[in-house]
């Protein structure tokens, strides 16, 4: 009995130790904890990194790109070269409308842009797709209305993994011995990657349930209202998805209905809305050349999308001036 008892005691202690390590380091900045006072957690925590990039930049950005990790690769150079506006890519991972509202407020606190490109994911309006906790731990939290703040969670599902243990140790290592490498470049652009080849890997969202959140639609309406008041051209569009991914949505009855509602809502909320989540539009882009995976367009695809939006914008402006 002694041996078993020892085993159980050791296991419990070790579990508590590892859990304690991960929580106190908080490597992915999900809990807002920093027991050891680390200068950097070296995480691609865009809400931190891009906040500081935008805040400290001397440029006055007249165009902003917003969206989720799927909008990470939209290059600011495309906008600059086409309509000659300084552009900042303020896309943040796992974003939902509240992120966009808060980021808009941050942007406005420095300089009023002329154009905003806003990419909306299918999941962004899904009630069961949680608002990312990291919003409430990042400097952006200062722009939340008082009723929107949230108490910090005690634990995160992703923290009970080997990856979390490894990354916690890496945080120690980097802060004491190493140097952090940045993946967000000037103007919020994403680091360079080598193109992929072959079939696109389909990533279906982990949240299988889907329910359109009216609350989030209201937030989008508010964003459009603010842009109207401040005379900002808000160009909204649905995030491109790969052909196979769209097929799956189309063939799953419950998803198909929700998706149609999703598009209808966005169409009615935004003055300028383009839908890229259509089989017709995506059928020519069915390879890794255009998609890193089914929900993340590659640099090439991002350029194409931006070009299309910019062309419509230029046409519209030409028409109006006539």
């Amino acid at each position, binding site marked *: 009995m*002694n*041996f*078993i008892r020892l085993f159980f005691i050791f296991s419990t202690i070790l579990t508590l130790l590892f859990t304690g390590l991960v929580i106190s380091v908080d490597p992915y900045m999900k809990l807002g904890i920093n027991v050891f006072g680390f200068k950097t957690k070296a995480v691609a925590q865009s809400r931190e990194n891009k906040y500081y990039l935008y805040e400290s930049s001397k440029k006055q950005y007249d165009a902003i790109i917003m969206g989720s990790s799927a909008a990470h690769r939209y290059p600011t150079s495309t906008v600059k070269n086409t309509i000659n506006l300084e552009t900042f890519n303020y896309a943040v991972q796992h974003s939902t409308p509240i992120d966009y509202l808060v980021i808009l407020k941050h942007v406005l606190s420095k300089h009023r842009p002329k154009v905003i490109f806003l990419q909306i994911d299918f999941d962004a309006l899904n009630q069961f797709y949680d608002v990312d906790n990291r919003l409430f731990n990042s400097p952006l939290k200062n722009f939340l209305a008082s009723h929107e703040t949230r108490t910090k969670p005690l634990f995160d599902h992703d923290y*009970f*993994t*080997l990856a979390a243990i490894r990354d916690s140790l890496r945080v120690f290592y980097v802060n004491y011995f190493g140097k952090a490498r940045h993946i967000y470049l000037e103007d919020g652009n994403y680091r360079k*990657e080598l193109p992929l080849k*072959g079939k696109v890997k389909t990533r279906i969202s982990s949240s299988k349930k889907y329910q359109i959140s009216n609350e989030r639609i209201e937030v989008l309406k508010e964003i459009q209202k603010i842009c109207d008041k401040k005379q900002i051209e808000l160009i909204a569009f649905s995030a491109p998805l790969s052909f196979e991914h769209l097929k799956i949505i189309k063939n799953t009855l419950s998803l198909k209905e929700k998706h149609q509602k999703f598009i209808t809502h966005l169409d009615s909320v935004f003055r300028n809305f383009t839908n890229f989540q259509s089989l017709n539009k995506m059928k020519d882009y069915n390879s890794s050349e255009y998609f890193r995976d089914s929900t993340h367009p590659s640099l090439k695809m991002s350029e194409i999308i931006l070009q299309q939006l910019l062309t419509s914008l230029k046409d519209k402006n030409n028409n109006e001036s006539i």
Partner: protein
Amino acid sequence: MLFNSYIFIFIFLPITFVIHYLIGKHEKHGHTLSHSWLILASLFFYGYWNFSYLSIIISSIIINFLITHYLISKPHAKIKKPLFLLGLSFNLGLLGYFKYKNFFMENMNLLLNSDFHFTHVLLPLGISFFTLQQIAYLVDVYEGLVKKTPFHKYALFVCFFPQLIAGPIVHYKEVMPQFDDDKNHRFNIKNINLGIFVFILGLAKKVLLADTFAIWANAGFNHTDTFHFFQAWGTSLSYTMQLYFDFSGYSDMAIGLGLLFNIKLPKNFDSPFLARNIIDFWTKWHITLSQFITTYIFTPLLKAMPKFTFTNSMISIFITMCIAGLWHGAAWTFVLYGALHGVIIIINHIMKKRKIKLPKFWAIFITFQFINIVFTIFRAEKLETAFNIFKGMFGLTYFKIPKGLISEELILKSGAIIGPHMNNDQNLNLIFIIVSLYIVFKLKNSMQLMQEFKPQTKTALFMSFIFVLCLFGLNRVSDFIYFNF
């Protein structure tokens, strides 16, 4: 249900364990009751994955029991053989339908240029295993080797959850006497300690090693371009390691779990990569399958041959290995796998006959190369992929020497294999491979460790450490977190 899951480790196992020993204490009916409990628990374990599978295994058990029960009771001579053939056809038919129907239909469509539409059948878990176990029992019953067996013992022999899903394939002779033994129904702390030890070894092999290698193997096998040298070897070796740790780990877990119930299950692996030739290999890899195949397929095949010539033996070997290959799965790559092994076994026998022997190091090295190559074929969904990997391995595409171990260029060139959040992945793959090669060639295997087990404090510490790592390892990061240094 899987062994490597929280629900199994923290809920199913403790409950099954506790109630088994409590029930077993009953004065009169302790044996029957605890066996029945284990049967119920095992069926629950089986049905947890997919409820509709239950009807298959239950009907298989019942029908086999009825037939064998009748055969044991010395029926009329005229009925014996037809009844036996009925039982055999039932088992093979069940297996054939669920496992091979799709394969059969696809090939028929190909051959006849037809286009029969057929519903794709889902493969019930473990059907290959419990079918073989029952066939062995059936054959032995027919040949008069088996005494009367009560239903609960038979049912438990077939569905005992440790060996139900992926073996080891148990011969009834190995377990039936153990079910009867009185002392096995009593709590035995030595077996429990040992059982937990072996279970954790298996769990670690699966969660920490196999599942990690799987990431690289899958990435490699999904790669559609040409492979260069390191990618090819990385992919090929990763799969071989994945397969070994997965399968032997699972067998270890099964054996450990059996011990928790005082049942000793047969060993299934014995440092297979130390084999000096392929004949040797099959006495060390999936041992219980080799034994079944030798006894119930190879032997009758050979005996049915007109004369005992060397050639006839080789033909029997070849046919048997093709069948063995096909048993693994319903695809031509599996048959090819078996056929290739058959050919090399034949070559080995010829070498034996001519007394050709290789020095130890080369024997092990060449055998390992062959095993690795054939496993790559086994895994590849298309032969084309396998050949692309071989081209890369044996230098028919470009060879790139990395500048030192940490090579940015090497990492970037392998872009297809490295996902967005796996930095320095090629290096990690190399480290894992080196460590694993050391484990399989130099360290004692789990069965040897089991023999040497002593319930010391340092062992408990070691076990806890890897157990806790496994617990963390059972949970995979869901979020797209890009970590960057």
